[in-house]
């Protein structure tokens, strides 16, 4: 069991994760552009496997374009039946995420 609170992705390095649950939280963050506080919805997954190791961690998503890649799996929590390989690329507004969806057999 690896103890890691949050899964932090490094640009260009894929991470294979399995999610067990999720919540949508309202968080207040500082807008990097204006420096002012702003309130946003954040999609937070519970992660039990990270690159094949058992973990007890969270994966937090603020970007709507990344959250949208998981939207069909949220309502029925069907993400439990898949592994996801997530690769982050770029920084700031140019960040993109390539997600490989692998059904669990």
């Amino acid at each position: 069991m690896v103890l890691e609170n949050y899964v932090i992705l490094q640009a260009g390095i894929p991470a294979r994760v399995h999610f067990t649950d999720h919540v949508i939280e309202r968080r207040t963050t500082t807008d990097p552009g204006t420096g002012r506080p702003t309130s946003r919805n954040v999609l937070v997954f519970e992660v039990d496997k990270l690159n094949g190791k058992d973990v007890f961690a969270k994966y937090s998503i603020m970007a709507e374009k990344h959250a949208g890649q998981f939207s069909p799996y949220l309502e029925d929590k069907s993400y439990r039946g898949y592994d996801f390989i997530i690769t982050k690329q770029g920084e700031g507004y140019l960040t993109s995420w390539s997600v490989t969806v692998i059904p669990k057999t």
Partner: protein
Amino acid sequence: MAQKSRQVEVRMVAEYLKETYPQYPFINKQPLGKVPEELMTALGYKRAVGMTRPFRPEVDAVVIMPGALILVEAKVWNIVNGLAKLPLYKSLVPFTPELKEYQKLPIVMELVVGWTNPNLEIMARDAGVTVRVFCPSWLGEVVESQHRYWTREYRVEREEKLRMRELFGVE
């Protein structure tokens, strides 16, 4: 009215893939094309792939089936652009290092749209692209607003809205 900033196409492609190919692995936002050999030798595979990512075209998804590789491009707006991109993307697959192990598979091109029309079907047939209409109820609203955009009623409504904004000094 739905706006482009709502990431409609991201949700559309994710739902389409889950409904249509639930039993097969797929890759969202797959970059395509060559990564220079010299860069791979100098920096290693992972760093070279990461560095070239912003300069490589990206297909919405690649579905890996036992007998075929399916390139999927989803479009709500500018659907002809989506159609035009697919044959070009297909030409890059043999040079894509991430897809090296699937290069013997035949490639199928799929354009996923919220609505279709006879001219799109003619062009798609000619380009060897399959058109799939995928329009869940939430997307229907988007498609409808897109069609309304060009009507006289909507134009008048829009002009009135702009006039009121100007009158009240609203940005």
